[in-house]
């Protein structure tokens, strides 16, 4: 092999450089998965099991949105004796009263920017408005 002395160290440097994000993240603290704050009311159950909610809450919200707005089906969802009115503000925020600690921690971490909050009111927005009045 010609130029063995240059090619092999060059390849090693190249591989190190291209995998830099992987091993840098593995050793840095920036990659710790955020811990969400559970409902302050101590509720343990939700509309669906936690794992399913974690994976599919956006699908559920979209379904609720279409049910309520497009199909006029506003009948409350009953799970385990508890009624949930279909709605981000009415159902979700009733338990998860701290949007900043519950929603934002994960959404910021994964860089997911939903536009729900452009219109839907969070408890903190409602509280802020009450104080200014």
């Amino acid at each position: 092999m010609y130029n063995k002395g240059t090619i092999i160290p060059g390849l090693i440097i190249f591989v190190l450089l291209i995998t830099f994000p992987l091993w840098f993240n593995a050793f840095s603290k920036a990659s710790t998965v955020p811990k969400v704050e559970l409902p302050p009311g101590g509720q343990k159950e939700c509309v669906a099991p936690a794992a399913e909610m974690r994976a599919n809450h956006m699908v559920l919200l979209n379904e609720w949105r279409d049910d309520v707005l497009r199909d006029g089906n506003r009948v409350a969802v009953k799970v385990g004796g508890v009624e949930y009115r279909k709605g981000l503000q009415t159902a979700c925020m009733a338990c998860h009263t701290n949007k900043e600690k519950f929603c934002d921690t994960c959404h910021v971490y994964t860089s997911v920017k939903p536009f729900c909050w452009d219109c839907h009111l969070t408890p903190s927005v409602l509280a802020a408005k009450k104080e200014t009045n």
Partner: protein
Amino acid sequence: MDKQRRKFLKIAGATALAGISAPVVVNLTGSPAVASAAKNQASAQAAAAGGHGDDTAPKGVKLGLLIDMRKLYGHPELLDKATQACNKAHNIPKIDNKKSEIKWIWKTPFANAFTDQSTSNASYTTRNNDFLVLCNHCAEPPCVRVCPTKATFVDKKTGIVAMDFHRCIGCRFCMMGCPYGARSFNWMDPLPFIEELNPDFPARMRGVVEKCNFCGERLALGKEPACVEAVKEAGAIIFGDLNDPNSEIRRILDKEHTIQRQAAYGTKPSVFYIV
């Protein structure tokens, strides 16, 4: 070679003829059910294309509102009360600017509300009282026809002309389509202009069109629309199903002479006035 070409043209001609005449043959030999269905469709189309005056047999629920102005003359405070109840229920921002203001229900003089009615030599009452106006939830809504994203649509279950803010792209075609000026555009973020927030209803974002929704969210909870409830003691606004022969609104409509706004446009408004 020439012979083959002639043959090809002959076959092509015969195939084209067969293709053209096939529907005729199908129509002639088709089952009577299919034939009558086609006929029905044709007559339905003819009815739809006909004059705006003739109503086809009403079907399903069609919610409507009747405003008995006789009970509101001389009481502008009642009109304000209804408007305020609506504003509060739907987080409507208060913007003091004709161009940017958001209106779901508001008061306006007779001449503005009923632009196709003559006001020459109108009575003192007509000239000196404001009339309550809102979205008419038309049976033939022009706003729905022009909306490119179907953000505004007719709710089949109730006949409410509803808005889906999630789909609205803010093109404002619906505002051009609406002959009643019942739609408002959010030129700015409305949140700072909302005086009192209702936690049960969302606010809006900049760049969407909004309008009266006949309190669909309150109806679902078994409540009456906010404006109806606000002036309940005066009994001036009656809300109900126009197609239900036993509803109060139907009974009054059958008994009293009512007028609609700009009825000649053929939008078939569901808001009626006794003046």
